[in-house]
């Protein structure tokens, strides 16, 4: 018996109809009764994004997640990890006792020397917690009392593609669902009119060529495709082809969708392909987005004081600041996971110039997001995560001068921060050695980080599984992962 036949047999009619509020039968039934728009009719609608039964596993600390992913790997030594003694070791060779045979990327393996490049940026202590932050992040430093700065995140991957895939999907090998997809699958979402998982990829200020992003970073892997992230485009219409073409009004669109849904249902009964269900759900969601997206992106009723929090770029669509404001609006409207992927932190060369440009993009907006969430009471129920896929080396890539240097990839320690729901503010977790090369105390593997994120959302990472290829797959994979209790309040 083929897997598809097995699937069809398992999937009874009742299970199909029960499984989703965006299923064909319900839509068809509703529109048979009342031909007008579903929303306005007030007919009872089952939830568009139901949670799995039995979830949340325990009382959630956060209802939403905003993930600020700094693709390319921001340099922790120049931003968060203050190592003043390195100033004395300018141009010193990295001792073998520190390097301990860490593999190099092909970009620096040909170098004869690995001179230490101390950061040229000044650090200072900020807030009541006295956390050290460099001068590149002056605005973020003002809200450092809300952040839990994790200095000892570590990973095994040394290049961008496997590392980003590892961080966001749990494995260096592609094919697995992303963090947002897992959460969307487990907890569903509260809003019917917006997707459960929204993704934005704003533009960046440093040199033009950036590492590519992949759809798999917000994809659904082996989960049904309806759990994937929905990207909002930076330029032009946030969602393509959302509006009805000329000559087609909403009733006509509705009738078309219903007819299409009936055809799809026939196809599903014949083949049992779950992607058909996804397709039905996506058409239905697109219909609802027609009204919800314009309302979301209309910033008309935002007071100027709020816009000023995020900085002057907030009204320019496609910038990081605009994405942060949209993220807050999405969370307000019940979206479960919002992910913003900001690119080109990969400062192999010209780090002082490029890192300053990148920080200028994000710094004020991060503070604005935190403060805006806080004053609306949303910070206590939203988890905000910031970080890249690995760190950068203490030694210089390329020529080292007193005013310019570059850094290569470094997986053994890097810095991330978390804020909001369930996380203690104003703490530093973990300690690295004097070279910001090895971890001395309290390591946090990215698996542990993912387990902690799931825990804050109310999910036990060991119990949220999906059977695929004979295994109960889970985000944190088969290896041990533990929740980091030290950063939780």
């Amino acid at each position: 018996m083929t897997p598809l036949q097995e699937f069809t047999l398992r999937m009874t009619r009742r299970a199909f109809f029960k499984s989703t509020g965006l299923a064909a039968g319900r839509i068809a039934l509703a529109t048979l009764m009342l031909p007008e728009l579903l929303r306005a009719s007030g007919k009872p609608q089952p939830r568009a994004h139901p949670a799995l039964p039995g979830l949340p596993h325990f009382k959630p600390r956060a209802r939403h997640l905003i993930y600020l992913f700094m693709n390319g790997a921001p340099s922790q030594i120049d931003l968060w990890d203050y190592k003043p003694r390195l100033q004395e070791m300018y141009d010193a060779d990295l001792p073998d006792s520190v390097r301990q045979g860490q593999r190099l990327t092909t970009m620096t393996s040909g170098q004869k020397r690995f001179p230490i490049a101390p950061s040229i940026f000044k650090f200072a202590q900020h807030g009541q917690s006295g956390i050290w932050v460099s001068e590149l992040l002056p605005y973020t430093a003002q809200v450092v009392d809300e952040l839990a700065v994790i200095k000892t995140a570590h990973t095994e991957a040394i290049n961008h593609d496997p590392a980003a895939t590892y961080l966001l999907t749990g494995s260096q090998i592609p094919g697995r669902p992303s963090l947002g997809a897992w959460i969307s699958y487990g907890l569903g979402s509260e809003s019917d009119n917006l997707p459960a998982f929204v993704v934005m990829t704003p533009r960046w200020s440093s040199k033009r060529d950036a590492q590519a992003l992949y759809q798999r970073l917000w994809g659904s892997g082996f989960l049904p495709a309806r759990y994937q992230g929905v990207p909002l485009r930076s330029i032009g219409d946030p969602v393509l082809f959302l509006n009805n073409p000329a000559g087609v009004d909403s009733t006509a669109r509705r009738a078309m969708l219903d007819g299409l849904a009936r055809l799809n249902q026939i196809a599903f009964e014949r083949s049992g392909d779950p992607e058909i269900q996804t397709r039905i759900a996506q058409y239905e969601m697109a219909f609802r987005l027609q009204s919800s997206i314009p309302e979301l992106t209309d910033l008309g009723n935002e007071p100027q004081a709020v816009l000023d929090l995020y900085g002057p770029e907030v009204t320019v669509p496609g910038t990081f600041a605009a994405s942060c404001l949209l993220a807050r609006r999405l969370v307000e409207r019940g979206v479960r996971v919002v992910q913003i992927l900001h690119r080109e932190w990969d400062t192999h060369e010209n780090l002082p110039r490029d890192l300053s440009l990148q920080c200028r993009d994000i710094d004020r907006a991060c503070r604005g997001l935190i403060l805006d969430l806080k004053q609306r009471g949303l910070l206590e129920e939203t988890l905000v995560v910031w970080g890249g896929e690995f760190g950068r080396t203490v030694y210089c890539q390329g020529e080292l001068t007193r005013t310019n240097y570059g850094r290569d990839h470094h997986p053994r320690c890097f810095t991330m921060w978390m804020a909001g729901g369930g996380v203690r503010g104003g703490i530093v977790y973990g300690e690295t050695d004097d070279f910001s090369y090895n971890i001395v105390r309290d390591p946090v593997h990215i698996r542990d980080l993912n387990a902690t994120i799931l825990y804050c959302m109310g999910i036990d990472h060991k119990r949220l599984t999906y059977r695929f290829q004979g295994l109960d797959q889970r985000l944190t994979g088969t290896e041990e992962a533990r929740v980091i209790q030290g950063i939780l309040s």
Partner: protein
Amino acid sequence: MTAADWALFLGRFHPLLVHLPIGLVIGLVFLELVAVFRPRRAVVRAASGPLLALLVPTTLAAAVSGWLLATPGGYDEALLRNHRITGLVIAALTGLMAAAHVLRRSGLYRFFLALCFVALLPASHYGGSLTHGRDYITRYAPPWMKHWLGLRQPAPATAQSTAPIDPTAFDVYQHGIQPFFDRYCVSCHGAEKARAGLRLDHAAALWAGGDSGPALVPGQPAASLLLQRMRLPLDHDDHMPPEGKPQPEPADLALLEWWILAGAPTNRTLAELEAPEAIRTRLLRPSAFAPPQSPSQEPSSAHPSPPPLETVLPKVETLSATLAISIAPLTPTEPWLQVNAAVAGTRFTDAHLARLADELGPHIRWLDLSGTGITDAGLLHLAAMPHLERLQLDRTAITDTGLAALRPLTELESLNLYGTGITDAGLSMLAELPRLRRLYLWQTRVGPEAVHALINARTRRPEIAAWEQELAQLQTRLERARLIVETGAPPADPLPSPGVPINTICPVSDKLVNLAVTLWHENQLVAFCCTNCRAQFQQEPARYRARLAQLANPPPGRLGVQPANTQCPVSGQPADPNITLVHAGQLIAFCCSDCREQFRTRPDRYRQAVSQTQ
């Protein structure tokens, strides 16, 4: 024995002595009553005399012993004051009674006797409360009596004992250890009465300890006084709890020992600590340590826990679909729901809220009404949601009048009122919410003075002052526990000042160095004449190590190496080692600078001489 010891000893006789005047007064009253029915004035008078003669000294003895007993302290101040006053009144009245009897003023005698009897009632009640707790009489009274007396029902035992059984939410101290103390210890070591200065009703008090010192030593159960006392034989004088009080089971003591051994953590869940199976089952028993009285710190909920979630899940589905809002369980084991009505926007009105409260009210723990169409009238329905913990009313049309409807929400911890028409007037009501911890007031018309007043009203509670005092005590103890050891200044930093190399001659080529070409080698900055030499050194550092050591430790005033010759190659005179020149990798000394200049211009002429003087 010192006077203080005698005082302590004799004070203990107060509970014994005090019953004598009580019995005697009652006896005298009884005699008077007998005299009413069977008038034998003389006999009564004759009988009263000796009783009165016994009454006065025993009253005095009771008063004195009472005073001695109260001196060490540890009693509730208000109760003690009342007991003292009424006791002294009784003592004075007995004197007056005796005087009236001697003076044969029977009317006055009976008047004082009646007063004395009346004064006995409150005095003995206060005395009993001092010893056994304020609610000693009423603890097991029938409900109608409690209601008549206006007492709040303590939460029924089942509600108290539904500690969550999920290990990641089971706080070991709060759900496992503190209930143990509440059951067996807090009646004598709690907020109302702190025997030997020891309180066991909250974590800070545990660390503070009492007159005998800290109650426990984290990590060392054998050294913890608390556990030692409980492990003593029952008939031992120091055994705790005292004989006659409910005794903990050995399994409970094992639990306590495990907890102390783990470092006595007060903020760890069961999932985070390693616990043997026996301990785990003991902790997770459903009826573990159901206390006979509600804990003294938090006001207990007047409302019982709602029925389990399975009974309402079908209603959840239909209601969520009908009202177009999101309703979901908070955890699978507890009967709580989280409701997000904000997604319905202004279409969600008071009528919808009424329906929600009606069908699911007691289950709702989190309610998000942001931006909905509810008004002050709708807030009245929140009375049907007594277990609300988080409430969001931001951007709705509510006003100060609506806030009064929040009064029954005794479990509310977070309240969001941003963007509403709240003013200072409404804020004062919020001070009554006992558990409120987070309040959001952005974009309201509330002024900073009203906010300050609210914070003061909520935080100037006597318990908080007491806790701050205990915190200060704990900090002094920490200070005293520290040990500062001074071992002198650390050895000098082996690194030279940055940027200055340790040598001036290249160890590879023996030429003068170029300061721009440097290398860090074993924590020392080494300079070279050129990059080739540096590369060579890096490849084979061992080969040049000896030379580097020579060059790095120059005698003062020298370049670091002795010149190879003692005779000047130009003049043949004895060479001055301070006048040198480096030539072809060698350091050559000259007798004078003229010879050096000559050599410098025509080095080949004197090469032979140099090689000869080697």
